């Protein structure tokens, strides 16, 4: 009975970026979808042309510009907006939310709130009291409690082509996981369950660091041995950092951890990879950022992770060197040389 009710209701998606658009199309296979886009022009244009960012828009997707309507009509909402706009988006959405709403986000980034005038570099320390995952932002800003997240190797282009892929729906609430599963699962899309939402979120965020490093290795013209080395050591670093930030080791070994890491490190299309690649080619960070339309979450993540690693006294060599490359003028070659010479000989010591 509850099921049939739910199946008549539309599902909401917030954010008409690549991933938001593709997820809307996937959801539209079994359900009417309301997709919220921030700019009114986009809304009008997409509804008219039925096309966006190169994706054809499913006929059951209606693009809207009205948060109130979205919350009113949809009990399940997928917020998928860049992490630096996430809190502002939640502040707009929150007045329309009720405790029965389910929010399953698909954003991979941290939120930080610093005291007035401070930056990540000037602030004395960064710890978990100011660095938040998106599920924590949702909880802080709204009455919603049934919160989940989507994470995994999900390149928008491949999903749009209906290539086989999988994701993890993580939540403390079983009903959220089951709802997410029911809505997303198809013969080409597998959905795994995880109850460690914070671990899954952190895994999805930290892998962006390693993705930049992977791009850099490619930029230097190195092959698969180097990449294998990077991915395995990167995974170890993610576990260390992730545990310090409140995740459980297991999340990092699953689809949202290793799975996403391997995919991102092998995808020259991804923004994070591109940043690393161009750095290795000798370009300046400032110029690279200016060229990009959508943000590379990884750049901010490096800044935050470096500061957190300092605070929690975690050894995070890759993050640390990458930070120096991005912001302190170290060259990629120098960073690599340091890492290759580092006298580190324990392979795995966290299981």
């Amino acid at each position: 009975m509850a099921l049939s009710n739910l199946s008549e209701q539309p599902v909401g998606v917030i954010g008409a970026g690549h991933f938001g658009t593709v997820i809307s199309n996937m959801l539209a296979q079994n359900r009417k979808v309301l997709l919220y886009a921030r700019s009114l022009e986009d809304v009008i244009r997409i509804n008219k042309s039925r096309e966006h960012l190169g994706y054809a828009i499913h006929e059951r997707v209606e693009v809207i510009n009205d948060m109130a309507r979205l919350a009113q009509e949809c009990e399940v909402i997928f917020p998928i907006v860049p992490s630096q706009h996430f809190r502002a988006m939640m502040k707009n959405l929150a007045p329309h939310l009720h405790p029965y709403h389910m929010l399953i986000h698909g954003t991979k980034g941290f939120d930080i709130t610093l005291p007035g005038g401070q930056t990540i570099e000037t602030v004395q320390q960064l710890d978990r009291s100011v660095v938040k995952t998106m599920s924590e932002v949702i909880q802080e800003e709204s009455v919603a409690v049934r919160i989940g997240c989507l994470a995994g190797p999900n390149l928008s282009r491949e999903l749009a082509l209906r290539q086989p892929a999988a994701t993890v729906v993580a939540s403390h609430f079983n009903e959220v996981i089951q709802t997410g599963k029911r809505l997303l699962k198809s013969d080409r899309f597998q959905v795994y369950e995880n109850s460690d939402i914070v671990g899954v979120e952190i895994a999805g965020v930290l892998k962006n660091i390693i993705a930049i490093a992977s791009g850099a290795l490619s930029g230097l013209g190195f092959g698969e041995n180097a990449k294998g080395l990077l991915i395995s050591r990167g995974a170890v670093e993610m576990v260390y950092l992730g545990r310090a930030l409140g995740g459980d080791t297991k999340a990092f070994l699953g689809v949202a951890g290793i799975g996403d890491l391997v995919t991102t490190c092998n995808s020259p299309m991804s923004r994070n990879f591109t940043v690393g690649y161009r750095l290795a080619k000798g370009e300046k960070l400032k110029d690279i950022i200016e060229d990009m339309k959508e943000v590379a979450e990884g750049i901010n993540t490096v800044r935050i992770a470096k500061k957190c690693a300092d605070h929690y006294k975690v050894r995070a060599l890759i993050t640390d060197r990458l930070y120096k490359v991005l912001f302190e003028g170290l060259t990629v070659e120098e960073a690599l040389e340091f890492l290759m010479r580092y006298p580190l000989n324990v392979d795995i010591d966290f299981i």
Partner: protein
Amino acid sequence: MEIIEEKKNKTKKYKPILDRIPDWPVYQLSQNRKEFIEEVTCKAIERIHELRPLYTKLIEDLQTSALREQNRIKRNRWRVDPKDDSQFWLTVKNELAELNAQYTAAVHPQVDEILKRIVHRYASEIAGNFKPNSYRFASSVIKFWFARLLNGARVKKFGAFFRNKYSLRDKIHIVGKVRMIRNLARKGTVVMVPTHFSNLDSILIGWVIHAMGLPAFIYGAGLNLFNIKILAYFMNSLGAYKVDRRKKNLPYLETLKMYSNLAIQKGAHSLFFPGGRRSRSGMLEKELKLGLLSTAIEAQRSLYNSEAKPRKIFVVPVSLNYHFVLEAPDLIEDYLQVKGKNRYFPEEDKYGSFQMIKFLIKFFGNRSNISVSIGPGLDVMGNYVDEEGNSLDAHGRIIDTKDYFMNSGEITVDRQREDEYTRMLSHRIVSEFHKINRVFASHLVSFIAFEMWQKKYHQLDLFNLLRLPEEDLEIDYEEFKTVFKRLRTQVYLMKEKGKINYASHLKGQTNLVISRGIDNVGVFHLNRPVLKNKKGNIITKDLSLLYYYHNRLVGYGLEQFI
């Protein structure tokens, strides 16, 4: 030893919100005690079947329960335990063994019968027995004798014994949201969750409820307290139900939760100590027991599900603040032993009726006061409520608590969801405990003295620190005073941010406040935790005890200002 008087307190007299005892929910519950026990038994059995759908599994669980019960009887027997305990469980065990041996579906009715026998026995043991006459009697006895003790001890004149200059209200300050809790008790059902430091809490809180003009609450009191006859008498008459922490088996836990759940659903205001037992370390509770807490959430959902105009349930955190905890030396001893070696020790109370009375005499004869802070009302999800009982979100918008239980427009029963809600509620309560905690001068003095020594000997771990000879420990008074001033300022700042509260006596001239703290901290212990020596410097006679009193202010990050 001169103890400096605290500011005259302003605890007012409150009129009862329900005049006639027969109108009290707790009275109605006890009037129908038999039927209520039947109902609890029935519903608990239903729940147990739901949790153990397979009879083979159920039999296994009952067998484990029987074994554990026999073990308990052998190892840790209490005076309150029924005489036929061991016979009962022996029979149950034998019958189960037989059924298990010849197991077919045909034995199901017999298993049901045994289950019913067990659950009914537990329900009868748990159920309180509130009697209006003994309630009236008990409260007047408490009032009369406490007044005698107070007046006799305070006014040192012949005949003072029969005066009424002081009453309990001078002794026990009730601060915080009293008006709100009175309002909420009219509009809905109150579940009070206090911090737990001393066995005295149970009686104290009973009096506080009475003094606030609220009808008697049912409350979950440790069965061990019923070993002490004088306590047993008062607690029975105040409406206590019994919680036996030795029994951890499935039928017992489900029966206990069902009792609390149904009583709350019937509108009986209730109280239990969510920490489960007295704080061993002297710290505010960090982790709560989720069992009884979950019953508030479940009761609320059931009410929304079954009634047209459901009563709302309000959770009210309460913090009890003492200068002195009678059992502190034993509690901290337990804590250190467990922390040091992690070994099992049976729980025992060294205090009988005589010690209890002796303590009361000491306590009331002395000017060391107690304060009780009533926290703001919360709904079962931990949202603040307004005076009308509406739940508010962080921005003051009114929200409907019912929505937490809705899915696709209907109330749904989802135990996993409610477990998660319970966990969230427990975090909210812990955070409220920290906010309403009232800093006494004695707490701050202990905290500072201990932290200063810890800082000085930072290379030692806790156990080595506690083993230092007391003669080696001395803090220069002026140095102490400087730190005291600094930390007091921090406490003021934290209060402005709503992170903590402090007693009015904390303000005022520094020397005075420090001596007030020193004179009051652990005032009746054989070895005083803090005192001044002839030179006026700070010393201790018992560092472990000092550690205990110091712990009250742990968790605020104050140590960084030492």
